[in-house]
Each structure stands twice: as structure tokens, then as C-alpha cells.
């Protein structure tokens, strides 16, 4: 069984980090993983995206045109990638910045105002973790406890950020419920 998650958004939205935490969590659960960033021209400004592949067996192609799931942090990325998601997948929409919807009836569209939640938590910079947690809670791609552990290790070098991001995880889960 293999599934793929595409994270997409503006440069500064922490796309690569949330993708990395998910990949790490899946690895901790003993799965094969690959974290594949989009690098290149679009880096400066524009939309960045990153794909995480999670599988039970050795991963073949790390290049995914049709991911199982999508986490869309801004409108351009929803517009660009919504159509590519496989039927039955989860599309998380950051409704704080996206006023349209995926236009897909064959997927599980989860709308979460992640920026607003993050701002409430004290900093918009935790939006990516809110989104990640919400997505994980809905997709069950990894266990929430594993996610918590990985968020904690991720910020272990910046201890004072841990409370904020742990709170983000909880709020994310709630939002997905």
C-alpha cells in the first residue's frame, strides 16, 4: 500500500517543514518514505510544493503526478493541484486564504481556517502545523501520537516553540473532527 501527500503553498508558509515532519512520523512507524521537494525557478516567490510518499514497500518512482492527498495552503496551489488528486483522497483547504473550493465531489474536502487558528494560538507561523495535524487526523496516515512526538523532536532545538506547535497539533485535530 502506498499513498502520497502533496503540500503546496507560498514560499514562506512552512510547506517543506510540515512535509518533513509527516515523512519523519511515517518513518518512525516503520514505513518507507520519500520527501520530494520542488526545487528550481519557482522557489523565489511563487508557489512551492513538496510531496511525501509513504509506502509499505521499497518506493519506486518518487515523482508523483497524481497524489493521493493534497494540503493546499493558498489559492494558487488549490487551483493548480486539486484536479490531480486521486479519487477518494483528502484535500485540505486553508480556508483562511482560499475562498473557492476544490470543485471535486470524489474526494474528502476538509476546509480549515488554519491561519486564523494559528493567529489565535499566538503566531501565524504555526499555520503549517495546524494544517498538518488536521490533515493527519482526517487521513489517519500516521497516528496522532507519532505526529506529536515528531513535532516535539523537530523543535527540540528551539524549545520555546514547542508549546505553540503542540497546541497547533491539538487545534488541528479538533478542526478535523
Amino acid at each position, binding site marked *: 500500500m502506498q499513498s502520497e501527500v502533496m503540500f503546496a503553498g507560498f514560499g514562506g508558509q512552512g510547506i517543506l517543514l510540515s512535509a*518533513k515532519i509527516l*515523512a*519523519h512520523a511515517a*518513518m518512525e512507524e516503520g514505513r*518507507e*518514505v*520519500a*520527501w*520530494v*521537494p520542488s*526545487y*528550481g*525557478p519557482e522557489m523565489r516567490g511563487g508557489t512551492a510544493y513538496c510531496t511525501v510518499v509513504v509506502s509499505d514497500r521499497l*518506493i*519506486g*518512482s*518518487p*515523482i508523483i*503526478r497524481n497524489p493521493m492527498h493534497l494540503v493546499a495552503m493558498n489559492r494558487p496551489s488549490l487551483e493548480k493541484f486539486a484536479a490531480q488528486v486521486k479519487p477518494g483522497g483528502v484535500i485540505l483547504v486553508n480556508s483562511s486564504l482560499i475562498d473557492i473550493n476544490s470543485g471535486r465531489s470524489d474526494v474528502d474536502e476538509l476546509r480549515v481556517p488554519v491561519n486564523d487558528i494559528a493567529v489565535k494560538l499566538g503566531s501565524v507561523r504555526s499555520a503549517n502545523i495546524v494544517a498538518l495535524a488536521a490533515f493527519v487526523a482526517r487521513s489517519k496516515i500516521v497516528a496522532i501520537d507519532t505526529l506529536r512526538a515528531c513535532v516535539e523532536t523537530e523543535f527540540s532545538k528551539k524549545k520555546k516553540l514547542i508549546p505553540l506547535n503542540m497546541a497547533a497539533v491539538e487545534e488541528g485535530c479538533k478542526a478535523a473532527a
Partner: protein
Amino acid sequence: MSKVLMKGNEAIGEAAIRAGCLNYFAYPITPQSEVAEYLSRRLPEMGGVFLQGESEVAVSYMIFGAAAAGERVFTTSSSPGISLMSEAISYMVGAQCPAVLVNIMRGGPGLGGILPSQADYLQATKGIGHGDCRLLVLAPAGVQEAVEMVMMAFPLAEKYRNPVMILGDGLIGQMMEPVEFPDHLKTAPSNKNDWAVNGMETRKSDRRNLIRSLYLDPEELNEHNLILKAKYDRMKKEEVRFEVYNTDGDYGVLIVSYGTMSRVCRTAIDQLKERGIEVGMIRPQTVFPFPETAVEEAAAKKSCRVVASIEMSMGQMVEDVERAVKGKRPVQWYGKCGGDVPTPEEVMTFVTSLAA
């Protein structure tokens, strides 16, 4: 030691350290600059040498100078940077100095692009420098294998007193995968005192050493070239490495593919199997020496009707495949070169067109 999630470029840097190489000289270039960024923190911590050279030409000669002193040393670059190292590589081969060079290939020719490519295959395996000059070239298909190959590369370079190249594509450098690092290498560069210019005092010897590639006397130069040729021939005997996939049963098509491209092919092969189409694959892990016999034999299998060289280039490895197959089967090429890694779907379309 347990698994860590690591970016290919950083894992390559860490692998070199575990191979006992604490000397790194490089010049920034996408998509491999993270190696330098990683080592600029790690090496000073470890009392190693990190130096950003002023150019790839200078870097290639810094490597040469460090290697001449008998120390383990390596550099990393990407396509245009490797072209600039061409002269120095030929010199190191001629002077029989071991060193490890990593080429994280990007699209070319010229400035090209910064996305993954395999278009330096012919340069790396046949034309890296002037004169009869060959490198042992290892081609990893993932982060874990990149780590293992880097750690293999140093002892191999010392065994042959010849530079060894790791030929990876941009994706190998940029993606993160779980890696398990082997233990630190115990071996130090062996018998370097026989040849290294590390000072008579270091060697406790009264014989001075000399490292050169100049042989003005034609007979002498011919002798020298025969010695080098003997090393290349030995590599062909002892170092050929490859992996086979789905070749036990019968297959109508044989794919030859390496690096990231071979992983896409593996996925394609699995999906074709589901559709009842059997395709075998040989994945060269050494592209020089090229697994000629393996490819020839696999192609000769009764069920096999056609051989396909699938690469992220406009048709380079296909020349080696043709040589190996010796006309026993038709050889086809499929590829793309620009940074877009072909998808399993694209590969399947091509292969089915052949199977048809």
C-alpha cells in the same frame, strides 16, 4: 545505528566523514550546494578542512594537491562545474592520485537548468578528460545507496590510485529518505608512503617521492598508458556492479536504466505486471565499468524481443547498451532531458508500444 531522515546532499557529506574523509573543497552550484553548507558546519567541529574554492578549476586542483599529499579528499559539483574540472581529472588519472568526485547532474547543455538530469553519462564514462583517461563511476538510485557508494568510493579510489566519481541526478541530492549509516570505515589510505608527496620526514624515508603526469619519452609514456589501461581492464573484471529486477521469469522487453530513472521504471514494471506484461530490468550500479555481459545475456534470453535504454538524456547509455547487445536484439532508446523525470505512465506507454 537507527534510521535518520536526511536530504541526499547532506547524507553524502555525512557519508564522506564516516568514510574517514575530513577534507572537502568545493564551489557552490545548484542542485548540490547543501553538501557544502552541511560540511561548512560539520567539518570545523571535527577539526577537518572545509574550503570554498574560488572556482571549480581551482577546486579540482586543490583536490589534486590534497590527494597528492596522500590524504582522503573529495569534492561535489554539478554538470557545468564538472566540465571545468576536466583538465584536472585527466591530470589526476595520469598522476594516479585517488580522490572522490560527486556530480549531482542538472539539465544541460550550457547553463541548461537546475532540475534532475542524466545527460553527463557519456562525459563521465568516456570523455571526462583528454588522453586515455577513465574514472570508476558509481550511480546511486537513492539516498541510502548514495551513502553506501560514497563510503565505497574512497577505498576504491585508493585501490586503483584513480579518481572515482559518484554520478547522481538532482533528485538524489534534493530528496529526503531514511538512511542508516554504516559504521565508520576503519581502513586508512594504504601504502600511500610508496607514492604520496607527504614529506620524507613523514615517511621516515630518504627516498623522495615524485608525482607527475609528464613523460616526454614516447616509449615511457606508452608504458605508462599501458599501466593505466591495465587498471581500467582490472576494473572491468573486478568492479562491475548491477541489480536485476523481474528477470527470473520470461520477459518480452528488457529495460536498462539507472539512478532515479530506474526507480520510475521499477514502478512501471510492477504496474505492467498487473496488466500481464512482463518486463525485466538491469540497473547498472557502476556505469563505468558497464555491466556488458549481464546486459548481453539478459538480452539474449529467448523470450526477450527488444532492449530499451531508458535515461534522462537524449540517448547516451544506449551506446553502451548497443555495444553490449551486439546486434542480438533491437535496441531502443526512451528518454527526456530537461528536468522533468518521466513518469511511470510515460514509461509504460513507451514499453507497451515496444511490446506491441
